[in-house]
Each structure stands twice: as C-alpha cells, then as structure tokens.
C-alpha cells in the first residue's frame, strides 16, 4: 500500500505540473502510467491471496472428508442409525459441492467482477461498473442461499431422525432388560455404558475437528481482513490528493477482499455448524434414554 500511495503522490505532483503547462495529453499519459503501476501492484497481492484462499478451501474440504466418516461411524455406535443414514449423503454432497462450487464458479465470478471494475476505472468512456456490482452481489446472494439451505436441511432432517433414533434405542433397551432373564438388566446397562463412551468420543472428535477447521481458516481470514482494511484506509487517505477514479479503484479492491472474506467466513461457519449439528443430533437422541 505504501508504494501505491507513493505512486499516487508522484502522479498528483505531475498532474499539477502538466495542468500548469496546459497540456492535456501529458496529463492523460501520466494517469495511464500511474494506473498501470497501481493495478500491477494490486494484482500481485490479489494473486497471492487467491492462491491462499484456494489452498485453504481445498484443505477444508479434504479435512471434512476425513472427519465426517469418523463422526458418522461414531454416531452409529451411539445408536443414531437413522440420523447417520439421512445426514451422511447430505453432508458429504454439500461439502464436495461447496468446494467445487467456490473454486469453479464463485472465485471466477469475483475475478470477472474485479476485472470489470478495474477496466471501468480506466476511462470515463467505458462504464461497466454496474455489471461488476451485479456479479459481486450475486456471489453474496448465492453464498447466503447455499448456507441457509445447508443449515436448514441438516437441522430439520437431524431433529426428525434423532427422535426416531432415541425412541428405537429406548425400546430396544427396554426389550433387552425385560425379556432376557437374569442378565437382561446388566446387559442393558452395559449397552448404555458403551453408548455413553461412544458419545464422549464423538463429542471429543467433533471438538478437535472444529479447532482444526478454525486453524485452517484463521490465517487466510486475518490476511483478508487486514488487506481489506488497508485498501479502505488507502482510499480514504488518498481521496484529497488522488484522482476520483483511483480512489474508487482502491475502494473496489477493498470490496473484492471483503467478498473473499465473506466467502471464507461463510464456508468455515458452514462447516463448523455442520460438525456441531452432527454432534448435537445424536446427543439429542441420547436424551430419550
């Protein structure tokens, strides 16, 4: 950002000189040179952060693909067979879908929106700002819809199936305790102990999973937040001396980083909610016993 501000300061000095000379051609050329330099500097940041985002989303999906089967197995050992069978396909599908959707559609859409925003700031003649804003707002809307659908589906199906699991397990325990002579009660209690231990293991695995999800996303989120803040601050600092198009370009880049921040936050929150729901669904099934 420091180099961008230096370029802007030099350009404002050159602009004043060229205006004094009343030569519009030179002013235009210095503007273009400044613009190219600023965009080149910004693109370096942009490419780096894009790589970080892609890597962390791939890591998240990879980790979730190894966490969910273990959690589902532990769910089955706690007796939540119906919930496990209902939830597993939804969660695994959504995780894979989100990973591919973000890297294949959302990130390219943000790239297109940013490129259109940069192009529209080159000259007053080319105005495609609205299209850029449209792409950006569609990304936010699509993410919101996916997040709502995922949480809604998992929580509704989970709450329905957990009741079925709880009642089935309670009936089975009652049958074992009453119909098996002499050792029926002991057997029922032993089953309860094993289920309780599985539940503790499941909760512990889920907690470790959530801590690891936070560990995967925390650095990219902090980086994006810092970059967003720097670009907004830069645009605010440069407003008195810089061209209005340069100020809105810096603002646009701040918006782009904000969109990436929203993507990372929503994906991580979605995965954390997913893991928490898996833990909670089988825990609420245990309440029936």
């Amino acid at each position, binding site marked *: 950002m420091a180099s961008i501000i230096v370029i802007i300061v030099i350009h404002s000095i050159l602009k004043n000189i060229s205006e004094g000379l009343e030569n519009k051609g030179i002013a235009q050329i210095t503007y273009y040179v400044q613009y190219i330099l600023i965009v080149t500097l910004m693109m370096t940041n942009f490419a780096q952060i894009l790589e970080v985002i892609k890597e962390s989303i791939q*890591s998240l999906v*990879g*980790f979730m693909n*190894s*966490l969910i089967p*273990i959690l589902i*197995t*532990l769910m089955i*050992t706690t007796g939540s067979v119906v919930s496990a069978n209902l939830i597993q396909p939804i969660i695994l599908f959504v995780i894979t879908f989100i990973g591919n959707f973000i890297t294949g559609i959302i990130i390219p859409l943000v790239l297109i929106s940013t490129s259109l925003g940069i192009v529209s700031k080159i000259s007053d003649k080319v105005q495609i700002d609205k299209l850029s804003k449209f792409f950006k707002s569609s990304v936010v809307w699509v993410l919101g819809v996916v997040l709502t659908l995922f949480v809604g589906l998992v929580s509704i199906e989970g709450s329905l199936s957990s009741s079925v699991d709880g009642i089935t397990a309670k009936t089975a325990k009652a049958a074992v305790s009453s119909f098996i002579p002499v050792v029926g009660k002991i057997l029922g209690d032993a089953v309860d*102990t*094993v289920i*309780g*231990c*599985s539940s*503790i*293991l499941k*909760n*512990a*695995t889920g*907690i*470790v*999973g959530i*801590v*690891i999800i*936070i*560990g*995967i996303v*925390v*650095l990219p989120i*902090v*980086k994006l937040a810092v970059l967003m803040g720097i670009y907004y601050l830069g645009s605010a600092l440069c407003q008195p001396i810089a061209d209005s198009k340069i100020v809105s370009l810096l603002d646009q880049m701040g918006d782009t980083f904000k969109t990436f921040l929203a993507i990372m936050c929503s994906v991580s929150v979605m995965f954390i909610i997913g893991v928490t729901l898996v833990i909670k669904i089988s825990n609420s099934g245990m309440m029936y016993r």
Partner: protein
Amino acid sequence: MLKIKNKQLVNLKLLITILSFICICIIPHDVQASEETISSESIMKSQQEALNINSFIQEADKYTQDVYEDLDMGELFTSAITGNIDNGTIINSILRAIRRRSF
C-alpha cells in the same frame, strides 16, 4: 415286598444326598468371570483403536502444523474427552501464528 421297595428308596435318597454333598465339595469354585468391572476408560480406548481415531488425529495434525505449532492434537483430544479444554492455549497458539506471519 412294599417294605423292601421303601427301604431301597430310602437308601437311594441317602445315596443321592451323599453324592450331591460330595459333588458340592469337589466342584472347584474358580470361575472365568472376574469381579473387576470394565472401566469406561478401557471401553473408550478399545473404541479409539477399533475406529482408528488416533490415525485421524495424526492426519488432522498435518493440516494445522503451521498454526498450532505448540499444540498437540492428541493432547487436545484427551482433554476434550475429560472435558478440560484449555481455550487459552488454543487462542495463544493462533495469536502466535498471526504474529509470526505478520512480522
């Protein structure tokens, strides 16, 4: 005839009683079942081994090596089982990682 039969029956009863007493004395009291109860810790340990949770934790450690440098996931798992998670250690690890990356 009836008296003889009754006498034989009494003798048989006596024989059965003596034999039963001998059997009770001879049959060993050793049983296979042990008196100690299986603790929940050993159940959890066996379940961990059966479900291969330890290898999952090792695998998970690789994802966050650069963030949680001084936090062992195995220890975190053990503390999660006992319900004694130290949030301060986790937060400090994250802050240290952010500091390392910033400067």
